[in-house]
């Protein structure tokens, strides 16, 4: 039974997305996907059992929020919060924007670009937020800010450590300055966790940039990142236009930021759950002798 079969049992809202991998175009292509890292065609079942990491080149493809929950949480332990919080159209961009939101809600079965709730990681209870790039590129509007802030406030009430798995292109333009203000709103909530001595862990996945990188995603007591994840403030295209030259290879990757001092540890997806658990245990269960696995 693959990891996603399990998830199907646990929660019905499964997304069949291949992340950034694309279905191979050969006959029988529904059984195969093509790695966006090396171009290799991978048998879909293997691809999914391997957590969407290419066995050949190690490329970490994007996951849906539900897949992430499946990967990180103990089976059946996830309890969703604020599943009905949705954005409005404060700037009156019009039906086009509202339709897109509606479409993405249907596609991802999320109310907006983040899924929040309570869960257990190796038995340790946490507040968990997972962003989903498939919903408007993970962009942060009022709903995303509201759900994340509310999650942290609940973590504060319940005395839980918080884990935030990020994936976002930044602010949501269509919500204008309200979108920008989510940076302040979420950051304020993080500082309340800090003050209460509750651990806050960020896990950066591809991509985590702009307004999300520049707020709650870089305020973790501990910041992990998946291999190859693009992180940064300005987009590569904008920088290239500014400096009028190509960017060096590896620029703005998780590994680049580990070297430059902004990421505590680059962790392979397969080791993420265990690593997150062990680190959180060190901060929440200081006297416990835990077993090595």
């Amino acid at each position, binding site marked *: 039974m693959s990891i996603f079969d399990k998830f199907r049992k646990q929660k019905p809202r499964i997304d069949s997305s291949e992340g950034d991998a694309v279905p191979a175009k050969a006959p029988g292509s529904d059984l195969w996907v093509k790695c966006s890292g090396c171009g290799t065609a991978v048998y879909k079942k293997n691809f999914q059992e391997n957590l969407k990491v290419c066995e050949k080149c190690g490329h970490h493809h994007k996951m849906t929020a539900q897949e992430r929950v499946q990967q990180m949480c103990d089976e059946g332990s996830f309890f969703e919060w604020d599943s*009905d*919080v*949705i*954005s*409005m159209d*404060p*700037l009156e961009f019009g039906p086009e924007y509202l339709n897109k939101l509606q479409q993405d*809600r249907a596609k991802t079965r999320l*109310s907006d670009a983040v899924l929040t709730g309570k869960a257990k990681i190796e038995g340790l209870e946490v507040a968990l937020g997972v962003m989903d790039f498939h919903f408007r590129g993970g962009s942060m509007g*009022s*709903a995303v*800010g*509201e759900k994340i*802030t509310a999650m942290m406030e609940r973590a504060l009430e319940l005395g839980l450590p918080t884990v935030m798995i990020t994936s976002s292109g930044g*602010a949501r*333009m269509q*919500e*204008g*300055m*309200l*979108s*920008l*203000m*989510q*940076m*302040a*709103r979420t*950051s*304020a909530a*993080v*500082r*309340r966790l800090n*003050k209460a001595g509750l651990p806050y862990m960020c896990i950066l996945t591809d991509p985590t*940039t*702009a*307004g999300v*990188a*520049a*707020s709650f*995603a*870089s*305020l973790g007591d501990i910041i992990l990142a998946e291999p190859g994840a693009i*992180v*940064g*403030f*300005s*987009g590569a295209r*904008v*920088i290239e236009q*500014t*400096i009028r030259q190509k*960017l*060096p290879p590896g*620029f*703005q990757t998780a590994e*680049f*930021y580990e070297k*430059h*001092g*902004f990421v505590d540890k680059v962790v392979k997806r397969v080791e993420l759950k265990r690593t997150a658990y062990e680190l959180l245990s060190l901060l929440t269960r200081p006297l416990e002798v835990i077993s090595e696995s």
Partner: protein
Amino acid sequence: MSLEFEKPLLELEGKIDELKKVAESGVDLTGVVRQLERKAEELKHSIYSNLSAWDRVQIARHEQRPKTLDYIRELFTGFHELHGDRHYADDAAVVAGLARFEGRAVLVVGHQKGKDTKENLLRNFGMPAPEGFRKAQRLFIMAQRFGLPIITFVDTSGAYPGIEAEERGQYEAIASSIALMTELTVPILTVVIGEGGSGGALGIAVGDRVLMLEHSVYSVISPEGCATILWRDASKAEQAAATLGLTSETLTKLGLVDEVIHEPLGGAHRDLSLTYKAVQMALSKHLEQLVKLAPDDLVQQRYDKYRAMGRVQREVKV
């Protein structure tokens, strides 16, 4: 520098000046001049009371619009600029220092654009590097230690999008600056005096009161950037400006700006002393209110204020 929408007015004003010169040589043109002057006044009103969002962007970016150091010179006494982030560099795109405002010691921090090419190069067009935000943070903490209110002036097209800025953690610098401002125990007053560009602006703009000059703009993304993304055409910036809700009126309606400071007709640069006076009065009023609050209340109210910034609804599933 003349703005596109001002051209008819400037032409008319030029014509009046010419006629006046002619009149000096003895010709009586009093009637004509008076008539044209009346016309100019009407034109002025009609132009400036119908400014589009894009017109505002032009005014907000005007080279002659007063900048942070102008406000510091005019409204503060005994300013001592303090340099450096104590980690890597001093960023000239952000100026900061101690001074007195109406006799009260305060910390002043602001983006500083140049008034000419030379100053713009020195100050990187007011676009902060990570060190600019980190200098601000260092001084915010100092202000907190000594109980000094903080006044920030916002005027940037955004944080600098360069390789080195990214290497040195532009995103982290902005995030930690924002987060710090949410928890400082001293009053924070922010005035958007020109261009408020996205995260680079917000990095020093989390305030107990956020004021905005009438023709300033404050935007989640530049109109040009928005147009590029929405329509793959930067020249549609005018259209983008109209949709982004970046004017002081819209932002006040959305509850993101606490007070609009009215500008002289035609914009701040058309009557500097009026502008300075208006900003001073606004700062004075709000500062007086804020210094009365106990630190805990201040922080709680600031939290509540930002906590409320969002428009969401509960989806009704059918």
